[in-house]
């Protein structure tokens, strides 16, 4: 059996090397080997990560949990990191970022993504309503600084809100699988118990592991959680009195993250706090104060600056610039700004002059010229 697996993996390595060779490149010129492989099987590719949907589950009324089996180009991930998932909706490729929630030690090679479905969440609704077992989706390799360190911390505090639960869920599952014995506190914020993704699994984990403390905090009145309301310092004293000693991982909606960050900053602990912004705070569209115009040189179009991001303004002007995550992560939308000032909506930083910018997170400050 072992010999057979070895032979087959050696065969696969040989085949991959052959398909990546210069000869294969010229034989398949100019389209490339992938364009021919996909004729036989949509999962076959020499460098793209594509994944087959193995399972679709609905853990809550407004979420969808996908089990994906990536092809052999997948290089794995570190708990906490995210991937870009691309699906085609009405003919158009749409890309969003999701953090795998599964344990690093999951045996079957699959990854698990959970998306919360917002009322007008275009992609998440598609994932919940249209995607089915057997479909093939496109993935990126895992990326992101928010990740469980290889040298596991001694004490871990995981704080999450809403669908921000996924990266810290991966951390928790991984640590438990590794037999991690240090104290772990899992502090999660949700509107109600019914909205909480992974609720029953978390209860089970907490029951089975003495070192895991689960603290649920629900915002709606009358919900049965250990705590209620929005994050506060008091919550922290109750849930994790030793938070100063722990390494903390935080992922949730922007206002909650800001409240947590404030406490860590006040206590001079900022460097012990690892954080991941999973949704971008909607830019304050100041259409009244927006000035100037946006000039798209190559397409010879122009728009009056309305205060939205340059990507949105380009799209409403009828352009179809390349874009991906729409939150400043994937750099698919990067393009040349030849003149003008822009504000980064994540940091508020203003930059000017000729430079490459990510238009999905850039808002023009006055007249801006883009080379698209």
């Amino acid at each position, binding site marked *: 059996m072992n010999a057979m697996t070895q032979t087959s993996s050696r065969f696969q390595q040989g085949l991959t090397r052959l398909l990546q060779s210069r000869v294969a490149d010229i*034989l398949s010129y*100019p389209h490339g080997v992938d364009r021919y492989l996909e004729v036989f099987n949509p999962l076959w590719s020499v460098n793209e990560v594509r994944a087959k949907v193995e399972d679709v589950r609905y853990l809550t009324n407004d979420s969808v949990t996908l089990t994906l089996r990536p092809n052999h180009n997948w290089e794995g991930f570190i708990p906490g990191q995210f991937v870009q998932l691309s699906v085609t909706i009405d003919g*158009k490729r749409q890309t969003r970022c999701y953090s795998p929630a599964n344990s690093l030690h999951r045996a079957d090679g699959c990854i698990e993504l959970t998306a919360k479905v917002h009322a007008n969440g275009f992609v998440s609704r598609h994932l919940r309503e249209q995607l089915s077992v057997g479909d093939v989706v496109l993935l990126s390799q895992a990326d992101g600084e928010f990740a469980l360190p290889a040298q596991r911390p001694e004490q871990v505090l995981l704080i999450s809100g809403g669908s921000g639960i996924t990266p810290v869920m991966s951390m928790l599952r991984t640590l438990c699988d590794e037999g991690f014995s240090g104290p772990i506190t899992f502090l999660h914020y949700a509107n109600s118990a019914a909205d909480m993704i992974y609720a029953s699994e978390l209860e089970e984990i907490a029951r089975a592991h003495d070192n895991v403390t689960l603290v649920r905090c629900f915002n709606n009145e009358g919900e049965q959680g250990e705590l209620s309301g929005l994050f506060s310092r008091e919550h922290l004293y109750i849930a994790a009195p030793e938070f100063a000693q722990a390494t903390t991982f935080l992922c949730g909606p922007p206002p909650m993250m800001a409240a947590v960050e404030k406490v860590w900053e006040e206590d001079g602990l900022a460097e012990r706090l690892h954080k991941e912004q999973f949704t971008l705070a909607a830019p304050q569209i100041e259409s009244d104060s927006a000035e100037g115009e946006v000039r798209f040189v190559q397409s010879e179009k122009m728009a009056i600056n309305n205060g939205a991001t340059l990507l949105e303004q380009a799209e409403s002007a009828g352009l179809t610039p390349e874009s991906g995550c729409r939150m400043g992560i994937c750099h698919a939308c990067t393009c040349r700004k030849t003149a003008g000032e822009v504000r980064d909506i994540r940091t508020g930083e203003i930059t000017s002059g000729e430079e490459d910018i990510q238009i999905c997170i850039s808002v023009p400050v006055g007249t801006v010229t883009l080379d698209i």
Partner: protein
Amino acid sequence: MSIFSNLTAEQFETIGQELDAIRNREMADLGEEDATYIRTLIKRQRRLEIAGRGLLMAGFLPPAWLAGVACLSASKILDNMEIGHNVMHGQYDWMGDPAINSKVFDWDNTCTNTAWKQTHNFEHHTFTNVLDKDHDIGYGILRMSEDQEWEPRFIFNPILAGILATFFQHFVAVQSLKLEDYLIYKTKTKEEVKAEFKPTWKKMRKQLVKDYLLFPALAGPFAPFVFAGNMAANVARNLWSSQVIYNGHFPEEVEQFPESVIENETRGQWYVRQLLGSANFEGGRLMHVMSGNLSFQIEHHLFPDLPAHRYARIAPEVRAICEKHGLPYNTGSFVKQSLSVWKRIFKLSLPNKSKDDSGKGPLNGLRAKVVSLTREPQSETRKAA
């Protein structure tokens, strides 16, 4: 006399608005249907290519060789016409799929994506049938217009048109070099040509190595069969695509325009120039697909970035607009249009019959009218009408 000079400014404006309405409606409707269409077609083309190359490996058997050439020719034609040409026009850019995007797509042809977009998408589609601006009028080799001054070399017009058709992909590949400027008019230096040829040669070399070295080598002792099969497929594609393209702009009634026409040209006038400068040909679905829907050359020139499979659907509307405004809608069978093209090629190999005859060319009468049209739009043209 050209109808172009008989239209009023309002008529141009109305025609522009009517065509824009079709465009906006179709563009707003883009979606799943278009994506599925192009994806399915690409899949079919790749299958044909794999089958063709496979069959040619057994090319020592005559039926396999013939079938292989047929599959590979069809594959190359689909790749260049309905897929490559249309994808590089940006018809499917909205899909956001890098494999089907005009920025990156490359085709099974020796012409580079960059050179093609310059000479075809920009020069040919913007300056369609404008003499001295649209290099597709004769490709610098042929005399395709009465208003192109006759030179002794044009005696060879028909022979050169045949050579151009046979090696069409290579001529298109070097089209951006404007070789006649170096060889005949001496307005370009050898160094300039060399520098410009570099990227083209890089692509040409890969295409040639693939078709004439690597694939034959894979067949071992049967290499000559593969070599000959690949050459036959390339020539078949060249002959077919060149004839399709000739038929789009060179049938006898298709108009050509003087450079003055593009000064201050309005959108409506641009549309009408595209209408008058293009010709369709008729046929079944297969004919349309194999010609990359350039059988709807008129619709293609009006809306070059609209997915081409939609042209058949909007053609009746475009034709109705033409009829309403008294504009010709040039169409006919493939054979009729081809004969018309070749008649023109032969006719123009000789000088115009007399000096006055050049006045009969569509341009001379038009020149003065168009100038007056752009300067004093309404009163002048009304008088002319």
